[in-house]
């Protein structure tokens, strides 16, 4: 009994982590006024970055480093496209998601000899703890509260939020809108990369992100763009994800249904909730000075 409960809790935390990190990444992006649907792509490339980095660097630390670098790089492209060149945020996001799929497959072919999956990586421990479990726990214990503190108790957070609500007003007060948006996108990129690392450190497969970036965005909306609430919202989907790992559930409910459950939940939850959520006012709107 206790064993089963612990198993459910642990699976929920692990399954929620990629979604929760993506949700948090979404919060940083959108609070600064940038819509970022490339979170999905960031999960994918950071997951690949971890496996490849750890595999070839013979250390989980290298995995961590390359996982974050991969996510940061993709975020940086989004930042340059949307902030510097004022490209439509969704268009840039779609392009990056496509690029993420192609680039990881190509790199996998070059590095591991096959397109669809990597070789098995055995470097998954940091301080003797499984990195997937460690990173997942960190989300709830450290990263989510820290994000709240950063956004609501520091001047950086205040400025970031101001830029997402009314960039013109922020600009008039001498706040560098572009710098703040870069900050939001890159912070969001780092956080989302942690989600990619928590995805599956042992092996990378094409399509491994499985829409979790988008479910993360749904969690963010459900959490009304608040960091802690968004992370908590992700556990609903994480729990649904964890359910299908249980033997007795599998015995009674067809696997197809269980796999679809998180996505069905997203639809139900958003349909009932979306009118009540209030996105940042300048969310997804490129800022062009002097208009």
């Amino acid at each position, binding site marked *: 009994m206790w064993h089963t409960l612990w198993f459910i809790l642990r699976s929920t935390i692990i399954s929620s982590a990629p979604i929760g990190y993506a949700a948090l990444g979404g919060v940083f992006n959108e609070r600064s006024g940038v819509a970022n649907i490339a979170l999905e792509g960031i999960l994918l490339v950071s997951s690949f970055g971890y496996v490849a980095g750890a595999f070839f660097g013979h250390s989980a630390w290298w995995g961590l480093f390359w996982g974050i670098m991969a996510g940061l790089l993709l975020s940086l492209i989004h930042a340059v496209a949307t902030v510097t060149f004022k490209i439509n945020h969704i268009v840039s996001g779609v392009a990056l998601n496509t690029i993420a799929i192609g680039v990881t497959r190509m790199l996998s072919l070059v590095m591991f000899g096959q397109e669809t999956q990597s070789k098995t990586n055995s470097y998954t421990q940091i301080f003797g703890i499984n990195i997937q479990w460690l990173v997942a726990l960190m989300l709830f214990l450290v990263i989510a509260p820290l994000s709240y503190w950063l956004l609501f108790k520091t001047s950086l957070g*205040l400025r970031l939020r101001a830029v997402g609500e009314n960039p013109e007003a*922020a600009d008039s007060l001498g706040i560098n809108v572009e710098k703040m948006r870069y900050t939001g996108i890159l912070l969001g990129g780092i956080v989302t990369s942690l989600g990619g690392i928590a995805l599956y450190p042992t092996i990378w497969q094409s399509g491994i992100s499985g829409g979790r970036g988008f479910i993360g965005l749904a969690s963010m909306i459900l959490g009304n763009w608040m960091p802690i609430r968004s992370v908590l919202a992700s556990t609903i989907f994480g729990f649904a994800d964890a359910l299908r790992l249980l033997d007795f559930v599998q015995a009674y409910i067809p696997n197809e249904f269980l796999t679809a459950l998180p996505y069905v939940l997203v639809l139900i939850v958003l349909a009932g909730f979306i009118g009540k959520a209030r996105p940042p006012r300048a969310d997804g709107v490129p800022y062009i000075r002097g208009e």
Partner: protein
Amino acid sequence: MPGDIILKMENITKRFPGVLANDHINFDLKEKEVHALVGENGAGKSTLMKILYGLYHPDEGTIYIKIDGELKPVKFKNPQDAIRHGIGMVHQHFMLVYGLTTIENIILGYEPSSVIDFDTARKNIEKIMTESGLHVPLDVDVEVLSVGQQQRVEILKVLYRNAKILILDEPTAVLTPQETEELFTIINRLKEQGHSIIFISHKLHEVMEIADRISVMRKGRLVHTMPKSEATKEKIAELMVGHPVLLDVPRPDVTPGDVILEVKDLTVESDTKGVMAVNNVSFHIKAGEIYGIAGVEGNGQAELIEAIYGLRHPKKGQVIIKGEDITGKPTHIIRKKGVSHIPGDRHKFGVFLPFTLADNSILGHHREEKFARYGIFRRFSNISKWAMEIIKKFDVRTPSEKVPMSALSGGNQQKFVVGREISFDHDLMIAAHPTRGVDIGAMEFIYRQLFEEKKQNKAILLVSADLDELLLLSDRIGVMFKGKIIKELDNTNRQVTPKEVGYYMLGGDLESHNGGDTVGGEQIA
């Protein structure tokens, strides 16, 4: 009493492609002084102030600021530089971040430390509030504050940054007369405390009331600076426009005829479901009569017009034009029944900016046989002729009817819209904010046109945020408050005072109130 000069702008010149926005301007400001800067749109006031606030860099000229008792030349790279030298600006369109609280808005960009110490910030702000008399609730989203309160937040923002010199850009444009009076009390108090204020406005009676000195700008040049004792409204207006202006357009004497528009128990739902923007409103307008609707914006005026004009379905009640019930009919039918409309937001409802003047000249009547054969094939020569008639008759300054609307200045666009709506056959003219954003010259012109309409025995429904305009033009004035016309005032002999209207704009005896503080204010705190 004003003291020494603390700010001097010398020979400031700023060129934009094709325009000399500021032509060798000399401007100064004394300690404890209110220096009014007046001029028409495009006269260069904003450019000059943006230079002072570090948003633009002058091509020529120098700014001097008094530092340690001495005037020293300074260069502002950006607004921060200006703020650091004690200059603060209250923008006409508030620069507030909705979604953040009042306190967050005040400290934004000037936080006491990178981890914000809200307690210290609060103490400082409360001290400033007590000193200046500007009180606002600190822990609510600024979005819920009334316009007057939001302006106070803007002033607090500037004071929090230790500004000595305050630039107030058209601060009264959004205020009721009572709120304006309170603002003036605060300005005087700030003056006593050692602040200096640059007051930008084009409302001449306000300038006469609050300013110590007045500078007038015209076409990029500062034409005259004078102490208030030497100024009169007429003199300022003449300096602004460059020729004498008859601000007091005489009202034609017309005996009202038959009832043209009758509105009966009209109730209209707002965009928020269940909330009635217009609540049981009844009134009528006779031929040759101008009926003005006064009210703080957002009290149902826009919805009332939309319901009459067919843009919004009324919940109940009737709109009757010349005895015919047109409630809920589509707009093009209503236009055919003889209704013309000068929309309040001309860019949203009045014109298509990228279309030519010719195309814009037939909007709403484009199906008529005169402009389109069988209602389909356009008759270009007729359309051009029609557009040219409007352009000539209404003095629209344009190279031809074939240029896009966006090539015209705001005042000329408005003259064109007014001209078009007058030119179509009609008995009822709905004019919403007909002079918004136009300069005094065009304003006078539009007033004359509306009086001309009156002479032609048209019925005119006038909605305006400009009280002076309402009092000047209207025969009767209905004051709207929270969706109801709570008072109808007879203004046949121009006997109504702004104060009287202002009293009802704030709810009159419907709401218990003390001065101008009640609008949205204390109930929230």
